[in-house]
């Protein structure tokens, strides 16, 4: 085995008789054993097996490969506008860029990249504080990370920001949005969470459009809520501003994956026209006050359990024995799990565990009075959470136990179903359920 290092220019004579010249690239987790990846002079990469090959090193360190930059901490950018904004980066697709030479993905946007991406940031802000807080993929976020993000956002608001943008991976963005909605009490200004479904290293990225919408929300929003601003459709025509406690990622890959459930989105933002359009009049009004209270603790003793046919009731017992203080069950239909589990649920509530019931149908509210099973579950102490999303109920329960650890479980249960951030209740009309495609032929193309 020849000793070649990334960055060396080499000539390889393969066993099959090919002679190839190229620069050795750093190995990645997808490369095969015993192969090197070469970048050819025409820009292509190929993999070459070193088995039975001879290698000449033509130039050592021919290509200097960039070192990964460390965290940049806090950068302040002076803009041309009137607003004070903060941009808190937590990681995810929206903050990743590729190094063209190696294909390595750089996990953070520099403050400079940011302004190049979204000129609106510079134009609308007098001062933009960019905070490189963490670089986490959103599937790795924990309740502890929610606390850190809450504190950082709270700090920026208390020091006078007119709004804070939080860049986040999309997989669990709605969980973090709910976490912030509960932890930031007496919020006076909007907190806008944003992400990307297409990485920012491609010309078709949605990161740019989504990001550009954020300062417009901060400029024009009449509400002081934690919101998620993402593509409204597959087109680059407008962003939707969703209430953080009513939003869900409804598609694994589409740009318009984020949709409001059981409610109407708060607003539309036409980015190219820089126009903000309010579409929901029910919101928490913006006071502009910097006096936000941060209650940033979250309990990690809350579980989210999906009901399924044949669910082993022992799982509930196990959670109770492990010291869990809250279980949100994503029940079937109107809010059910198999009747056999009522006994385990009863034991859980007796031991002070709050057991809440949401629905796995996503749309609609639970109602446990209709069927016997429901009534029986109510009798053993299950708390139905109405039309609250199961994920939101889970975050809320974690927040309640985190901040009121010695409270009576009955009191926790009652707070769980008390509206705090428009996460629960309200009428649902025909319009809050999406219209699916039923094979209706589209005759006339648009435009």
């Amino acid at each position, binding site marked *: 085995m020849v000793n070649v290092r990334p960055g060396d220019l080499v000539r390889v004579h393969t066993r099959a008789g090919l002679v190839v010249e190229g620069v050795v690239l750093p190995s990645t987790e997808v490369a095969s054993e015993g192969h090197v990846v070469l970048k050819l*002079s025409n820009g*292509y990469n190929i993999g070459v097996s070193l088995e039975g090959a001879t290698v000449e090193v033509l130039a050592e360190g021919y290509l200097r490969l960039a070192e990964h930059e460390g965290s940049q901490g806090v950068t302040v950018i002076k803009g041309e506008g009137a607003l004070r904004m903060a941009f808190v980066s937590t990681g995810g697709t929206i903050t990743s860029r590729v190094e063209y030479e190696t294909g390595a993905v750089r996990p953070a946007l520099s403050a400079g990249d940011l302004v190049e991406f979204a000129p609106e940031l510079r134009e609308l802000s007098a001062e933009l504080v960019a905070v490189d807080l963490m670089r986490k993929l959103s599937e790795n976020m924990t309740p502890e990370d929610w606390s850190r993000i809450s504190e950082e956002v709270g700090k920026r608001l208390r020091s006078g920001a007119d709004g804070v943008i939080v860049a986040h991976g999309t997989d669990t963005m709605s969980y973090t949005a709910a976490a912030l909605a509960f932890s930031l009490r007496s919020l006076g200004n909007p907190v806008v969470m944003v992400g990307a479904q297409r990485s920012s290293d491609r010309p*078709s990225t949605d990161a740019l459009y989504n990001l550009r919408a954020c300062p417009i929300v901060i400029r024009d929003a009449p509400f002081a809520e934690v919101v998620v601003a993402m593509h409204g459709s597959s087109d680059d025509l407008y962003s939707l501003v969703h209430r953080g406690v009513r939003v869900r990622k409804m598609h694994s890959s589409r740009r318009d994956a984020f949709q409001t459930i059981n409610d109407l989105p708060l607003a539309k933002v036409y980015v190219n026209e820089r126009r903000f359009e309010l579409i929901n009049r029910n919101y928490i009004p913006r006071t502009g006050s910097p006096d936000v209270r941060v209650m940033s603790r979250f309990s990690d003793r809350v579980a989210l359990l999906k009901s399924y046919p044949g669910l082993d009731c022992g799982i509930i017992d196990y959670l109770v024995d492990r010291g869990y203080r809250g279980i949100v069950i994503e029940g079937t239909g109107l809010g059910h799990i198999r009747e056999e589990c009522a006994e385990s649920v009863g034991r859980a509530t007796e031991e002070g565990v709050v057991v809440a019931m949401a629905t796995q149908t996503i749309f609609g509210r639970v109602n446990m009075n209709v069927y016997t099973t429901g009534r029986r579950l109510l009798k053993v102490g299950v708390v139905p959470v109405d039309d609250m999303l199961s994920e939101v109920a889970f975050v809320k329960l974690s927040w309640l136990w985190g901040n009121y650890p010695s409270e009576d479980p009955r009191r926790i249960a009652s707070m769980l179903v008390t509206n705090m951030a428009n996460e629960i209740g309200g009428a649902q009309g025909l319009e809050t359920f999406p219209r699916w495609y039923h094979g209706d032929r589209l005759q006339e*193309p648009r435009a």
Partner: protein
Amino acid sequence: MEIDYKSLGLRVGLEVHQQLSTKSKLFCGCPAELAPENAVYREVIRNLWLGKSELGELDPAAAYEVARGRRIVYRAPEGYVCLVELDEEPPHDINKEALATALSIARALNAKPVDEIYVMRKIVVDGSNTCGFQRTAIIALGGYVEDEEGTVGIQTIALEEDAARKVDEGPGFVVYNLDRLGIPLIEVSTAPDIRTPEQALRVAYRIGLIMRLSGKVRRGIGTIRQDLNISIEKGARTEVKGVDKLELIPKVVAYEVMRQLSLLGIKDELHRRGLRPEDVPDSFVDVTEVLKDCESRVVRSGVEKGMRVYALPLPGFRGILGTEVCPGRRFGTELADYARAWGGVSGIIHSDELPAYGISERDLDSIYERLGLVKLKDAFILIVSDRERAERAFSAVVDRLRYAFVGVPRETRAANPDGTTRYLRPQPGTARMYPETDIRPIRVDSSLLEEVERIKIPKPEEVLRVLVEEHGLSRDLAAQLIREPVLDLYLDLVDDLRGVTSPQIIATTILIHMKSLKREGLSVERVRYVDLAGILRAVGRGEIAKEAVPEVIKAVASGSSLEEALKPFRTLSVEEVERIVESIIESNIETIRARGPERSLGFVMGRVMSVVRGRADGAMVNAIVRKKLLSLFREQG
């Protein structure tokens, strides 16, 4: 003029792109075919975005459009396009059928597969790829094709996805149909080993034929496309994009050599005149007032729209801009390309082509006077435009004029239908390419190579055997088919007319009739494939006689529809021929009686054939004439 290409140091490299006819696209399960117009279409509107660092290497017009946020409208036909083409879902695993086909073609071209395939992203921002990049991978290296003027090396063989097809464009928007996006494409790049225009044609044909013989390529217009890299020793390497007709290749090469020689001639002339690059001024002059009574439509309608007429004075340049660089194109045309590409203006007017376009001798004199120039030795360029565009256009024109003192600039050019080329953009430094991180590298392992083994691409000798033994062609005809660039056409027709028209008739039509018609000066290349197939189908079905083929081809080549062309040659029925024979016998009854049965046969045959030639089979006519004469003399007897 006979040009000795070898002594000029001509070097040509080819890039042949061919669509594969796999069941599905390269990175998703959609069919690898185009959608019908009446499909159900949905539309998506997008923008593309590029960082400043990427804008530098772009087509100037595209960069400008991107910078201005051009609207890209994608039309997605239901059933032909999924979320992958719409860039709403990551690519699926690479299509194994396409990969095996491409590797089998690589093997037939004597190339060796790489050990591990990495799919790359090549930045493309005209909107033709929804992602803003094209996915492409080198699958094999090395290889060669043999040619009578010397072996030509194959440098790389790549497998890539085809782009969406543009269906409309206008100021600030472009519309693409996404059906073509993702159809697998194999790209074969040769070394610059080709030395003459004719060799370029043969090598392109040979590569195309090998692909065709795999039986796994799409056929028809737009399914194969050639790019050319052309240079001569003192000139520069020019990339010519989008030559979609094989027979255009030698012309494109010859014209490019001509163009480069002319540009070198212009360079010598500029130095001979003692001019220097600094003599091309940086600033231009507003001459709108001088032309206020001018009758030129371009000037008038421009000024009415609020535009101005700007002039760039060029002292000492008289005659330079009018120098022809290749047929129908002057140096001024080259400058106009730059003005259009960089400034988005409609063109330029230069003094070497004046008076013309409604600009009179007197207007000309006034402009010279206004610019302080002398008509006999100086020149100027006019642009009718707003100031902002004029600035960008003149800046590009000035740079190009100054480069005329150096020689031939490195350009990417596009082929025109007549074989000339036009400026498209400067050549990119290094292709902006980076790995497609959504697709894992693909090991070329033994199971893949076994699949490749199963796709047999016959060698020309094996094809010869098939033509003789299975198609029943004579050895001569078969050998001629393989030698000339028509075998692919022949095989297509045989495939499409299986069981209808015999291979012999097809071969004879292509090799004998088409060729002799071409020698007569007929533009046989104007005959579309569908029409040729239609003519041969009519022969096969007995609707026209095979003797009528040359006449029908002639009619189609001169613009008749297939139906119109076939009509006069529709075969006569037995009854119709009998009626004609009877009437001819009747009107010549005296002569026939006098000649007697034996000697009348040839006489009547001659008369009848002059009427039905091409519309009835000779043997059938002969039998009818015999029968009729026999019964005539029997009655008498």
